[in-house]
């Protein structure tokens, strides 16, 4: 129970029981009885209660609220009946809708398949272009030399702790590799695609020979 004796007008006005007493005394008879008795035994609070009443009275209903209540219920009732009556039709419509959905999914599936096929064919035609971006790196961590055959026919012997990086577009217009360490190249001659070796920041052009 609230300590109503300490209440200011705004506290009364904000109290739900007080609001109910002012606004709908008939709907809450127990509450109404309580407030009548309370006011009788606390007459000094009458002025505050009156002020609180005015505040509550600010929050009234518009005059035409009853008319709106009636017309909107008719509208709701009509919608409810309509939705019940068309319940079966809606279910059938849902089935038809599913067929439409199936056709749509099929269309998407075909598109994906077509795009996929194009991509796959292009990949085979231009393998290096599509493989792109990633350089192949060979590294010899063993003590024994390791021989590597590059895709253009060049063979490379990598000695201990040597790293060989193949340019991503190796063998497209040119052949570019990077060496860190010691390696022996036997370059296959191809004047259309010159062979470049980068080592310690220096690039060397090779046509077709073997070198260290």
């Amino acid at each position, binding site marked *: 129970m609230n300590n109503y004796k300490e209440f200011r007008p705004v506290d009364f006005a904000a109290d739900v029981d007080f609001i109910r007493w002012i606004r709908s005394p008939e709907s809450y008879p127990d509450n109404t009885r309580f407030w009548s008795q309370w006011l009788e035994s606390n007459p000094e609070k009458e002025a505050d209660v009156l002020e609180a009443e*005015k505040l509550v009275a600010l929050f*009234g*209903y518009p005059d035409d609220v009853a008319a709106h209540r009636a017309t909107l219920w008719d509208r709701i009732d009509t919608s409810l009946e309509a939705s019940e009556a068309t319940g079966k039709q809606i279910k059938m419509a849902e089935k038809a809708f599913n067929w439409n959905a199936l056709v749509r999914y099929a269309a998407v599936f075909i598109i994906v398949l077509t795009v996929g096929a194009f991509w796959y064919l292009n990949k085979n035609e231009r393998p290096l272009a599509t493989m792109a971006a990633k350089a192949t790196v060979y590294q010899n961590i063993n003590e024994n030399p390791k021989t590597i055959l590059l895709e253009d026919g060049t063979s490379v012997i990598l000695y201990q702790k040597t790293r060989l990086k193949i340019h991503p577009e190796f063998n497209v217009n040119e052949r570019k590799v990077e060496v860190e360490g010691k390696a022996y190249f036997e370059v296959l001659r191809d004047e259309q695609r010159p062979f470049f070796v980068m080592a310690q920041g220096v690039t060397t052009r090779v046509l077709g020979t073997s070198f260290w």
Partner: protein
Amino acid sequence: MEEKAIWEGIRKGDKSALKKIYDQFFSALYTYGLKITQSSADTEDAIHELFLDIWKYREGLSDTTSIRFYLYRSLRRKLYKSHTLSEKILRPDVLLDEVQEHSVETKLVEEEEKRQLSARLQEQLDTLSERQKETLLMRFYGELSYKEIAEIMEINEQSARNLVTRGLEYLRKTMKTWFLLMIFYLAN
């Protein structure tokens, strides 16, 4: 009828239980919506949708939810879906015009006083912050607890309490001025 019994009735497909809720809460829901949107049509649309939803999803209703809380939370969501806060325009003039249009001489002075008060209230509410305004409306029309208001507005309980009290203090201060203005207005 008790809340649980009403929910139960609706779940079982008893349309009279739905009507009972509607009759009990319409006036407050409608006024609450009207004061937020200032549009009777938007408010009616939202309430229409709200009651159709209750009926449509009646099997999933849980009787642990307070009806009030459920109604105000759902109505608020619907109102804000069609009425974003930033789009709202203050239209106290429109309300005042309506008031004057209705005030034919046959109306009692008392009635006139009520209308004036309601128009002034709307004016004053619009000078409050959105949150202050909404908490007041939820308290006075929704008769919701501070805990429920806090949950709906995603603030803490103490803030909800403070917003209501401060809003009322502001209204109380300005109210005294209105009465003077109104006496002046009516005297003319």
